[in-house]
């Protein structure tokens, strides 16, 4: 029968894919090596903050090291994709968060102390992949359970534990990644012992408007997102201390640091320059005022006399 024939072809193709992709991963090698100029490929994921911080790195290098060709590979779909790209040699640098490296990439247990967590991540990345974690930028972009302010008031919600009172009423909007990560919903559910009515995974950028419009009544927001104050949202404190610290840290392949002398010192100038409030402001400039990430980055670098 034609249907069965098509079906078996489909399954064969699918199996071929699984066995092939199992070993290859990303195959978007940059067109490098064509000229002998030094090149630095900077990656980033899909949300605003990642565009801004990768632009910070890119613009800083472009302005201060004109002989280095900077290539941007932004909009990669999540931490895991960035990690594959780093280890495959598709990108050389990115800004990663301590908690993501610790739990999602290294599968370590939660470490609350930021300095200790940083050290574990830094050492492991060096040993395993020869990737160097530089100085943290300063802000902690943790996940935050967020509801509307008036909803929090109406139900007396302050901590994440309080969600147990309204669990059967909560539809949680979250990113695709959050719905799967060990430091995302699966772990959160276990740590808090709260089973929410429903979770709706979606593109992370539209979570905020979807809670604003009442399509979901809670979201797992990024703590440094400028839309939290703008949309009158309330962060519920992580009272069980489930989420690890997510300080943002630039990471670069060690061979690139060797190839481009002074690069490490240059990027480290960004160390401790951006606190939580400042990052929230930068994010709001893009998400609310409609500026371009590269403009925001350039403005910030100029204001801080870095370029």
């Amino acid at each position, binding site marked *: 029968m034609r*249907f069965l024939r098509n079906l078996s072809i*489909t399954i064969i193709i699918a199996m071929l894919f699984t066995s092939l992709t*199992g070993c290859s991963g990303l195959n978007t090698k940059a067109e490098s090596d064509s000229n002998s100029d030094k090149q630095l490929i900077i990656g980033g994921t899909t949300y605003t903050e990642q565009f801004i911080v990768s632009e910070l790195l890119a613009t800083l290098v472009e302005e201060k090291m004109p002989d280095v060709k900077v290539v941007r590979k932004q909009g990669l779909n999540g931490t*895991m*994709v960035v990690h594959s790209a780093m280890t495959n040699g598709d990108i050389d640098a990115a800004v990663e968060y301590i908690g993501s490296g610790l739990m999602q990439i290294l599968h370590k247990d939660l470490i609350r102390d930021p300095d200790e967590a940083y050290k574990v991540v830094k050492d492991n990345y060096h040993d395993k992949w020869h990737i160097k974690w530089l100085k943290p930028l300063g802000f902690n972009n943790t996940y935050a359970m967020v509801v509307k302010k008036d909803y929090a008031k109406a139900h007396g919600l302050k901590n994440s534990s309080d969600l147990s009172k309204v669990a059967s009423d909560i539809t949680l909007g979250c990113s*695709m990644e959050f719905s799967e990560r060990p430091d995302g919903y699966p772990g959160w559910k276990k740590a808090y012992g709260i089973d929410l009515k429903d979770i709706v*995974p979606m593109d992370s950028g*539209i979570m905020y408007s979807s809670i604003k419009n009442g399509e979901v009544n809670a979201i797992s927001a990024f703590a440094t997102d400028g839309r939290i104050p703008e949309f009158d949202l309330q962060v519920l404190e992580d009272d069980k201390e489930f989420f690890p610290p997510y300080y943002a840290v630039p990471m670069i392949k060690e061979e690139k640091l060797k190839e481009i002398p002074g690069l490490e010192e240059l990027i480290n100038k960004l160390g401790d320059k951006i606190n939580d409030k400042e990052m929230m402001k930068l994010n709001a400039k893009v998400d609310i005022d409609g500026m371009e990430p590269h403009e925001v980055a350039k403005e910030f670098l100029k204001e801080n006399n870095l370029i």
Partner: protein
Amino acid sequence: MAVLNEYISFIIERSDQLLTLTGEHIYLTLIAVVIAIAIGVPLGILITRVKKLSGFVIGLANALQAMPSLAMLGFMIPILGIGSRPSIVMIFLYSLLPIIKNTYIGLSNVDESMLEAGKGMGMTGGQLMRMVQLPLALPVIMGGIRISAVTAVGLTTLAALIGAGGLGQLIYRGISMVNNKMIIAGAIPAMILALLVDFVLSLMEKAVTPKGLRK
């Protein structure tokens, strides 16, 4: 074979989720295609009778089809919000063109002599449409529906991006986790669904072909 075993155990582990998502997928596709048929076929009939409209209607459907589906989904968010409603509208708009076009072509290409015979028997315009043109054009119309439905199954995977669920959700989760098992777990049921839809509709296409036209 280890790969296959791993895949199978993953499916078993996730069977509840897989079933829910498949259900959502079928629901989204079905509603959108049914609406597309309910609107597309009458529109096709209308433009066969009022030829002046045909250029405009087909042109519009063509333009909709040409727009990147992801952009269309984005446009829907400010108007319809997120979830299943905007997704259904997006899939519906994409499914229109093949149905309208095939209805129009099917009806327009009915042999002139058949129409003459009908008229000679004293049929009114409506009777002619119902008893001669439509039955003769039905296989072509079904062909259009078949194309629409199969495309719609694939298109529905996009719905996951705006929180409507469906098998696309496993695919996107899989992409963000670089987990091929998860991608495949979403992709294979979607492929099977598309083939199944194609198969069932091909049977219906045969069934509605008038005896005189069967080979």
